[in-house]
């Protein structure tokens, strides 16, 4: 008997211990029982008596769900994303994407699998940007909710523990917005010799080769123009992304004659970066690359400018991907470059209903008042790939078959062509990013924003239109 009745540590108290459940038609009996049960568990000492009753109702409801889902006519998809916490910026457009997805006929009317039509239910769970919480909700979705597929996105803090749990509990899993090396290493593989296949886990995104293919052409252009020294600073923290970058990125730059100055593997949450900045200054690092947590970069960059470290071009990863983080830095973010894995300037469209990238960005802007968001495309494509995989199997509840189908998906959708069978590692599909620079906004879809990312380099993906000029930084 697996321990599906447990709702984990009661830190947050109350129903914060239950995955946030979103569905159009209110709350059904089962989730109501779960909420009541976990609420009692979280309520602390006063609820000792009722908590045992609460726990047993969770167990009971989990058991009944297993009985029904075994031959149910519903495909149940779990989606784990950091709705709150340090990485919440990644997931800000998720509610909009889910609304769009639920309005497509596949998700609204159902998916036909093996000649039978299945309705689709999506349960959304918040990883709170922490690995512990992500692992906990993944376990819940796999064992108690018994989902047929787990989708997860938005940085390794969420995707890696979820993938590990999915592999462990034999539930098909598809991740995105995580460098594939960091995802692969998180599952226990060696990205330098990627021969191992993980039966239940797949990912589509890109890796160090594509980061290098996006950033280095920009460095080369700025270097030719400014005749700057070929030295670059690497600020890579001691976490999944940082370690993937420290190992994987510098070799590509060194091949082009750049010297690497490392800032050392610092701990996330560090508050002063003077020693690192001193190193970059004395090393005369004209190019700057990183992969930090968003609040870290804000602090570090302010200190760097204060202490007089001014590279010719900063190409950042994992931060300044979204308008909200740029707004927090304001003018200091001008002409910082980053990667964009999805933009409204490509000719791609939805494999579900033909919505173009342009239309998706416009609709998001009209409904939210925000500028286009890169994760609109990646989150959207998760649900496209899910449909592709389910269409290829006989029954959606056969986890091994769905997982095998995921490994074979080859289609073109919101993020362009994705081929899981011919990636750099088993179960890895590659999408191609372009280089963008943040500059004062011009009008887009009839509205002007203070800061806007302009596509300045499309060396890796010529499908995406150039919308601005690459400019050396005057930070």
């Amino acid at each position, binding site marked *: 008997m697996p321990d599906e009745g447990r709702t984990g540590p009661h830190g947050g108290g109350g129903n914060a211990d239950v995955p946030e459940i979103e569905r159009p038609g209110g709350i059904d009996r089962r989730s109501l029982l779960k909420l009541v049960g976990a609420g009692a568990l979280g309520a602390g000492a006063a609820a000792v008596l009722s908590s045992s009753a609460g726990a047993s109702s969770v167990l009971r409801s989990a058991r009944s769900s297993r009985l029904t889902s075994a031959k149910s006519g519903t495909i149940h998809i779990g989606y784990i994303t950091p709705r709150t916490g340090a990485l919440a910026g990644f997931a800000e457009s998720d509610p909009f994407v889910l609304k769009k997805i639920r309005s497509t006929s596949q998700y609204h009317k159902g998916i036909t699998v093996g000649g039978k039509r299945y309705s689709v239910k999506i349960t959304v769970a918040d990883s709170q940007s922490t690995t512990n919480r992500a692992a906990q909700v993944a376990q819940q979705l796999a064992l108690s909710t018994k989902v047929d597929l787990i989708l997860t996105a938005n940085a390794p803090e969420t995707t890696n523990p979820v993938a590990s749990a999915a592999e462990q509990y034999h539930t098909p899993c598809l991740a995105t917005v995580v460098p594939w090396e960091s995802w692969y290493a998180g599952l226990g593989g060696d990205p330098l010799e990627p021969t191992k296949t993980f039966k239940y886990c797949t990912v589509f995104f890109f890796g160090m080769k594509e980061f290098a293919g996006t950033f280095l052409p920009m460095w080369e252009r700025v270097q030719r123009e400014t005749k700057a020294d070929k030295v670059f600073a690497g600020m890579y923290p001691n976490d999944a992304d940082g370690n993937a970058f420290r190992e994987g990125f510098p070799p590509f730059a060194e091949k082009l004659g750049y010297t690497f100055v490392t800032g050392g593997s610092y701990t996330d949450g560090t508050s002063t970066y003077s020693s690192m900045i001193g190193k970059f200054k004395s090393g005369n690092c004209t190019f700057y690359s990183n992969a930090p947590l968003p609040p870290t970069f804000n602090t570090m960059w302010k200190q760097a400018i204060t202490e007089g470290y001014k590279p010719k071009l900063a190409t950042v990863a994992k931060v300044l991907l979204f308008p909200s*983080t740029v707004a927090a830095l304001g003018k200091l973010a001008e002409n910082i470059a980053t990667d964009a894995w999805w933009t409204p300037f490509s000719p791609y469209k939805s494999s579900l209903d033909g919505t173009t990238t342009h239309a998706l960005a416009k609709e998001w802007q009209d409904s939210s008042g925000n500028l286009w968001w890169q994760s609109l495309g990646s989150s959207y494509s998760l649900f496209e790939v899910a449909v592709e995989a389910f269409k290829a199997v006989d029954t959606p509840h056969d986890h091994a078959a769905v997982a095998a189908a995921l490994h074979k998906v080859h289609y073109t959708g919101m993020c362009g062509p994705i081929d899981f069978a011919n990636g750099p590692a088993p179960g890895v599909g590659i999408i191609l990013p372009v280089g963008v620079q943040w500059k004062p906004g011009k009008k887009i879809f009839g509205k002007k924003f203070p800061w806007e990312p302009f596509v300045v380099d499309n060396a890796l993906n010529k499908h995406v239109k150039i919308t601005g000029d690459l400019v050396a930084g005057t930070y």
Partner: protein
Amino acid sequence: MQWVNAIVQGMVTGGFYALFACGLSLLFGVMGIINLAHGDLAIIAAYVAITLVPATHLPMVWGFVVVVPIFAVGGYVLQRTLLQASLDRSPFTTLLVTFGLSVIIENVLLEVFSANGQSISIGTLITNSFALNNVITISWFSLTVLGVAVAVLGALQLFLSRSRTGRLIRAVADDREAAQLSGANYRHLFGVAAAIAFATVALAGLSYGMLTEFAPTSGVTTLLFAFEAVVIGGIGSLWGTLVGGIVLGVAQQLGAQINPAYQILAGNLVFLAVLAVRPRGLFGLRTA
């Protein structure tokens, strides 16, 4: 020279830690309250600033004019109601109550402001600096924070030792019953102490919001550093808190100079060493 730079930057950072720790030190020193919501209260101050200050048309850097009085009043009210009520029960109740406050504050902030990081933008003031030589550059803002920390702690020290209210607060802290017999209204005095503590929390929260990005969950890490500064310096000693903050800042920077991975570790090791060798801290009167 890099090592000298590490020490200088550590001292400047230490000023910020000391400012942060000041309110914590005062609340514990006077009332024996370990305020676990300290960090979250500072984050509230930053949110209050970005919400209210734009409406006053003051430059953001003057935000403290708006936020500090609000916090002082809030501190007095909170002390007279919730904190005093829990203090009347037992010291452990205050620990639980402030922990509860911390959880509630975090979740309410998440509901109201979402988890997105924000920053109090004061334009180029934040990045203005002066160079001592080609290695050491000091930020004006951080130096100002250090100056504010010294001034606040100094003023508090004077207030507690020279003014009538200050002396009454110390009397109540030392022996509440005896002070009450002499006619001191300890509830009011505790309120005044809390008001001062909250005002310094607001100052610390605003400088934090200007220096970096904050989110509803940022309070916890800042609480840890403030706590370490108080314990290193010695509980109940205000000047000790200043020294504690600076020791912590310098230790972190020296650790980072050896290897950036050791920055936070070095601070924690100094904290542990002080606890092991001198449990009442460098200048402390009581044991931690």
